[in-house]
């Protein structure tokens, strides 16, 4: 049986910030609810108030502009993101990551904002947002602020959200022209499971080559590996650069052993997946 709580459904952001200012310590926000309901059923979370944000129209919008890029409201579901042609074409790492999360039925409810607020080290969408250099827009009664996604994750299940604050939107800037991105998830099954390792990458070949790689399930938070960029700045063949990047990834991560696999396997697969995705995106053999 699920814990007992009061259900609140604000209709405006103003109502939401007022509720949060009043009940912040005793409230949990609900978007899709696909993590929250499980945690309340297991009595890991026992909020006195559950505040449903789906009644706020502004939070349900997914918008794109050539100037600012993508803006994904906190209540936008993963399937809404997957249905967006522009996300598929321009923000491929995010599109592939959204499609790798859980299963199609869960994705009808689950949201991108919920996935990052849950702050699981195994988040599928976080590595994609890291390589895309996304920002998180936060709001409270005190005002608004914007922080890079890199600064949002503070530890296992810990975020930079302060008391009374909520995630309003996730902002994803346009990738450089010609950029190619992707996400590879390694799991125990082809169906729904958390990742053993997840790797997102974005590569730009035109002009100065840029390589961004981020991973999930290999550290207390999803992590970006800036050292991979350096591997591509020196000389050597494409294959050698990819090897250097994979070594940088394996050197940077600090996986643990858990119910899914041992840490040695995670380290090994992080290298394998890094090589695989970089070969895919750079066209190297």
């Amino acid at each position, binding site marked *: 049986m699920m814990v*007992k709580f009061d259900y609140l459904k604000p209709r405006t952001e103003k109502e939401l910030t007022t509720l949060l200012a009043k009940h912040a310590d005793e409230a949990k926000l609900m978007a899709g609810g696909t993590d929250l309901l499980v945690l309340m059923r297991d009595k890991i979370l026992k909020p006195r108030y559950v505040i449903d944000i789906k009644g706020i129209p502004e939070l349900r919008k997914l918008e794109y502009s050539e100037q600012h890029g993508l803006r994904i409201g906190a209540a936008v579901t993963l399937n809404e993101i997957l249905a967006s042609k522009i996300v598929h074409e321009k923000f491929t790492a995010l599109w592939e990551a959204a499609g790798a999360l859980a299963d199609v039925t869960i994705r009808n409810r689950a949201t991108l904002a919920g996935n990052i607020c849950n702050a699981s080290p195994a988040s599928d969408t976080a590595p994609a947002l890291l390589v895309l250099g996304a920002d998180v827009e936060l709001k409270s009664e005190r005002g608004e602020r914007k922080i890079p996604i890199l600064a949002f994750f503070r530890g296992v299940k810990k975020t930079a959200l302060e008391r009374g604050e909520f995630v309003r939107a996730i902002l994803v800037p346009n990738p450089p022209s010609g950029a190619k991105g992707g996400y590879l998830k390694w799991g125990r099954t082809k169906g729904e499971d958390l990742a053993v390792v997840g790797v997102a990458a974005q590569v730009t070949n035109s002009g100065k080559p840029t390589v961004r790689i981020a991973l999930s399930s290999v550290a207390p938070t999803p992590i970006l590996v800036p050292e991979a960029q350096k591997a591509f700045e020196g000389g050597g063949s494409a294959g050698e650069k990819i090897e250097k990047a994979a070594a940088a990834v394996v050197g940077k991560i600090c996986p643990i052993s858990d119910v899914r696999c041992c840490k040695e396997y995670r380290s090994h697969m992080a290298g394998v997946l890094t090589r695989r995705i970089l070969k895919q995106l750079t066209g190297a053999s």
Partner: protein
Amino acid sequence: MSKHKIALKVNGQRYEVEVEANKTLLRLLRDDLEMTGTKCACERGDCGLCTVLLDGVPTKSCMVLAVEVDGHEVTTVEGISGEELNAVQKAFIKHGAVQCGFCTPAFIVAATALLKRNPRPTEGEVKEAIGGILCRCTGYRQIIDAILDASKSA
């Protein structure tokens, strides 16, 4: 705990009920409305046996609070066809796509929604659409064959 008066349509019929905040749609359907076609198993979003259509979209009813469904429309396996069995149900019988039968309502609901949206799915699209539903008897081959067959006869 807060209580909420909600109005919803289930299988075309309108209901007005009072629900406690922590009641899931699954529990409302089974315990209050006594529609036990929708099965309850893991109650944590993993197995998919409680799949219903929420405004036509396959949804795990254990992952939705009843209060969230106020003003919305739910279709369960009880309302998935008319007097006669639908094409998916007939194909399940033809292909022996039922073993213990516990997962069958969920597969029927999800497959019917798939064929409505996409009348000629590929095998990959069928697998994607039922990816969130587990069959403990592991009879997936017959289930996939039945859905593909139903798509040809629809």
